[in-house]
């Protein structure tokens, strides 16, 4: 991973907060997502529940800092507070919550909120990543 310019485990400070750019949810997002996943279309104007988090990972990669050097998305806990509609505009707010150093990498957890155009938190939870260290040798841990 050393060839990739990025934000490594050592570069993250607990407590750091970030706000992503915003994205307007469209019928095109919904159509592509439903085609890709096979989710049935019960309500044409509703945003599928897992789509905002998928889009949020892309918004996170548009930050000014170099992208996180993630070796594995380990898991997450997530609450969906309200269903979004086509035309809503979302952005994400995250806060570095926990860092746990391991021999070859580090576990990094962030508290993550998806916020709509009214400032209301519509989804939130905690995401756990296995991240590369600048010094790390190649890992032998499987990834998601």
């Amino acid at each position, binding site marked *: 991973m050393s*060839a*990739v310019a990025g934000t490594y485990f050592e570069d993250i400070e607990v407590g750091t907060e970030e706000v992503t750019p915003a994205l307007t949810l469209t019928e095109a*997002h919904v159509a*592509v*997502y439903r085609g*890709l*996943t*096979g*989710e*049935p279309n*019960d309500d044409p104007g509703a945003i*599928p*529940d*897992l*789509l905002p*988090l*998928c*889009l949020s*990972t*892309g*918004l996170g*990669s*548009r930050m000014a800092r170099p*992208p996180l050097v*993630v070796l*594995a*998305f*380990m*898991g*997450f*806990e*997530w*609450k*969906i507070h309200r*269903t979004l509609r086509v035309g809503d505009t979302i952005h994400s707010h995250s806060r570095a919550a926990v860092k746990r150093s391991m021999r070859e990498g580090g576990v990094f957890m962030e508290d993550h909120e998806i916020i709509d155009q009214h400032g209301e938190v519509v989804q939130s*939870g905690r995401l756990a990543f296995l991240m590369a260290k600048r010094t790390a040798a*190649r*890992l*032998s841990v*499987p*990834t*998601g």
Partner: protein
Amino acid sequence: MTGLRRYFEEIEVGEQYESPGRTVTETDIVLFAGLSGDYNVLHTDAEFMKTSIFGERIAHGLLGLAIEDGLFTRATQAYATLAFVGLRWKFRGPIKIGDTIRVRARVRAKRDLSGPDRGLVTVERKVVNQRDEVVQEGETDLMVEKKKA
């Protein structure tokens, strides 16, 4: 559709379902990268990934989860779901291009919610590949409508 959906009272703890399989393709990964904007090298740089422990590109974890959610709807008759309330999820191993995944699900718990017309159903779900390895697993909480009295 409403008549065909299963209400809270009709769902039993311990019920198990298995979905059809689905082969995850390069196209799925490319479309998901375009949709999400997540172009991490893990999913998009075949040459770089040749040098990784995986030896090739792997699917986004959330793509696997999103496909899982679609497969779940094909595994059983639809619930009278009012809302997807939340989930707890672990990514256990990679999904590679050409892997065929399916969902095994089991109703783990049911409980009443404060409103008289709804309850919470917790479903345990495992995503397994063609070698029967669990690549993702977790629990989902669904708010399900009760039958009209």
